[in-house]
């Protein structure tokens, strides 16, 4: 346990071995001093005390004595067998039980005191060199004392004895917890002033849900967390919930990306979720939150990472069957042990106990990825006040453990009306928040997905359409036209209309080209025939010229012949060309 001030007050404390409590008190109970543990019936006083002694005997090498006023030691050991502290195998030299139950047939006459017991305990403590001692249910023996002053006297006697012997003492006594009458009413009130440390266990039932709280009321000479801290009694005993304190080392931050199980979502997120991140998927019922988390679980198992799937909504087998219909095959991984499906529908109890159970299961399964579907169950009736703190601790814990956490959360109408905040307000804590929505258009509902935030990631800010088919989960770009977002059939219609228009345009173009080709051909033909005609005309013209020349030549020859024949004189014939 890391103490906020290591070295300074650590040696003065005796570790209780109770997760959380040693952190609240900075190391445990005051060493060599007396601590008073008050609580109502069934609030866990005896278990706390036993755990304190077991820790001393097993881990700190400090022998302890348990003085049982209320129950027989045999019963106490038997009852604690389930916690795995192995009290039954501890030797009496390490942990000694003293049966100090007043005999039922005890008759009392006149005044008496506890010196007999203290003398005996002193001898025993010397013998086994005890350093820790528990007086369980001191109220039982005090009740035998006739009046207030004699009770006080015995408490003084006990306190002095403890101080004298330098024993770390823990005295438990029944009391109504914090909802107590005025302190002076009873000897414990007076005792609370006397002891060095007082711890109060509260057990309330809110709307049928049991809520346990622990509060350190005083701790002389030490800083401590004064607030009520929820705790549960789990299978390892006490488990006190503490939020991560500032002094504690931060969880290791990883740059590794893990797939969300949906390729296009990975692209939108710049590669997937961060390892160890907490992812919140919100949405109305039926927006495929479970499907998206199932896709994540499948991807995790495919990578060979042990995964825990906690379903508060339906049975594990139902979840697997339902996811099969969208192409997510989880059954094989559950068979191979890679995936653990936990149906937590029937688990009732405080949010705190659910968290502890989830933590225990995750540890047991050695999970690297965790799905909680839906995490909003934690805030159902009776847990409204504590749920937020529990969710905080859930995220803190998963981060510290390096577990990638995917939670779904039902966003009811109320939450939606409050501006998209989830009832648990874990949206502020989550690293990545994916919101699923319905878009109702033209008589159909389509799923839209958007990334509300993703810390440390450049992410797409576009709404995508989430399409579920038997082949799996895909995302489609939505069709935006004229400021309108189209999804589903409308998107398809719009897309196909566009396709048809394209085809028509293409056909028209082709037709035009053909027509032009034809016209071109016609013109070419005409050009050819004209050319031929031209050649013919030219030939004709040449022929004509030649004919003309030869006729003229013939004529002049004829005239010359005729002149020869007439014998006319040259002069006349020169004047008269006839």
């Amino acid at each position: 346990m890391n103490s906020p001030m290591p070295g300074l007050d650590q040696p003065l404390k005796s570790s209780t071995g109770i997760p959380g409590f040693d952190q609240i008190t900075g190391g445990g109970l005051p060493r060599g001093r007396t601590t008073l543990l008050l609580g109502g019936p069934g609030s866990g006083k005896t278990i706390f005390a036993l755990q304190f002694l077991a820790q001393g005997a097993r881990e700190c090498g400090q022998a302890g004595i348990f003085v049982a006023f209320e129950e027989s030691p045999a019963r106490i050991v038997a009852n604690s067998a389930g916690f795995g502290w192995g009290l039954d195998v501890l030797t009496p030299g390490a942990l000694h039980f003293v049966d100090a139950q007043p005999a039922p047939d005890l008759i009392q006459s006149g005044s008496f005191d506890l010196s007999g017991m203290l003398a005996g305990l002193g001898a025993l403590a010397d013998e086994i060199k005890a350093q820790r001692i528990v007086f369980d249910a001191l109220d039982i023996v005090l009740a035998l004392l006739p009046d207030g002053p004699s009770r006080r006297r015995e408490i003084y006697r006990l306190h002095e004895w403890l101080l004298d012997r330098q024993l770390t003492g823990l005295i438990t006594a029944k009391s109504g917890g914090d909802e107590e009458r005025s302190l002076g009413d009873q000897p414990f009130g007076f005792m609370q002033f006397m002891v060095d440390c007082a711890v109060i266990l509260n057990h309330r039932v809110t709307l049928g849900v049991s809520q346990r709280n622990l509060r350190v009321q005083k701790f002389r000479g030490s800083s401590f967390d004064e607030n009520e801290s929820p705790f549960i009694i789990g299978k390892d005993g006490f488990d006190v919930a503490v939020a991560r304190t500032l002094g504690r080392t931060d969880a290791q931050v990883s740059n590794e990306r893990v797939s969300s199980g949906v390729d296009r979502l990975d692209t939108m997120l710049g590669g997937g979720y961060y390892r160890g991140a907490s992812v919140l998927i919100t949405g109305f019922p039926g927006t495929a939150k479970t499907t998206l988390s199932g896709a994540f679980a499948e991807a995790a198992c495919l990578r060979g990472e042990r995964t825990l799937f906690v379903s508060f909504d339906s049975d594990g087998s139902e979840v697997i069957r339902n996811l099969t219909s969208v192409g997510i095959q989880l059954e094989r991984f559950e068979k191979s042990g890679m995936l653990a499906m936990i149906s937590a529908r029937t688990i009732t109890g405080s949010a705190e106990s659910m968290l502890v159970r989830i933590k225990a299961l995750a540890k047991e399964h050695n999970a690297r990825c965790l799905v909680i579907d839906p995490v909003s169950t934690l805030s159902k009736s009776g847990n409204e006040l504590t749920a937020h703190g529990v969710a905080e601790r859930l995220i803190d814990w998963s981060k510290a453990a390096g577990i990638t956490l995917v939670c779904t959360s039902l966003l009811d109408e109320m939450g939606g009306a409050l501006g998209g905040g989830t009832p648990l307000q874990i949206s502020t804590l989550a690293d990545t928040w994916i919101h699923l929505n319905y878009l109702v258009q033209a008589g159909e509902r389509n799923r839209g997905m958007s990334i509300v935030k993703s810390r440390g990631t450049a992410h797409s800010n576009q709404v995508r359409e989430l399409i579920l088919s038997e082949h799996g989960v895909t995302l489609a770009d939505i069709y935006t036209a004229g400021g309108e977002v189209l999804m589903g059939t409308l998107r398809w219609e719009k897309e196909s209309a566009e396709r048809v228009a394209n085809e028509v345009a293409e056909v028209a173009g082709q037709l035009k080209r053909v027509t032009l080709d034809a016209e071109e051909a016609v013109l070419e033909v005409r050009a050819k025939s004209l050319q031929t005609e031209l050649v013919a005309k030219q030939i004709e013209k040449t022929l004509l010229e030649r004919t003309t020349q030869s006729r003229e030549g013939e004529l002049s020859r004829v005239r010359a012949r005729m002149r020869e024949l007439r014998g006319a004189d040259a002069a006349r014939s020169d004047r008269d060309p006839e």
Partner: protein
Amino acid sequence: MNHAMDAPCYEFRLYVAGDAENSRLAAENLHALCAERLPQRHRIEVVDVLQDPKRAFADGIFMTPTLIKLAPAPQRKIIGSLSERKVVLLTLGLEAGH
């Protein structure tokens, strides 16, 4: 008192814590009672828990003073200074209860 010879002998063990006030009172009260009611037929063993703490512990004695009637049966245990004589007599079976 006419069956003195047949009547059983009473065996007592008184656990005391040193010379504490209530322990001293208890011893006085017991001796006085025995002298009056059980003359010649009682035995008293006094155990000081401060002297012999382990024994008292082994005997299951946590409060002092404690008186145990070992015989005759049934065994009885009374804690306190034995100052309420009527209660003591009733418990030890030395007086019918009315």
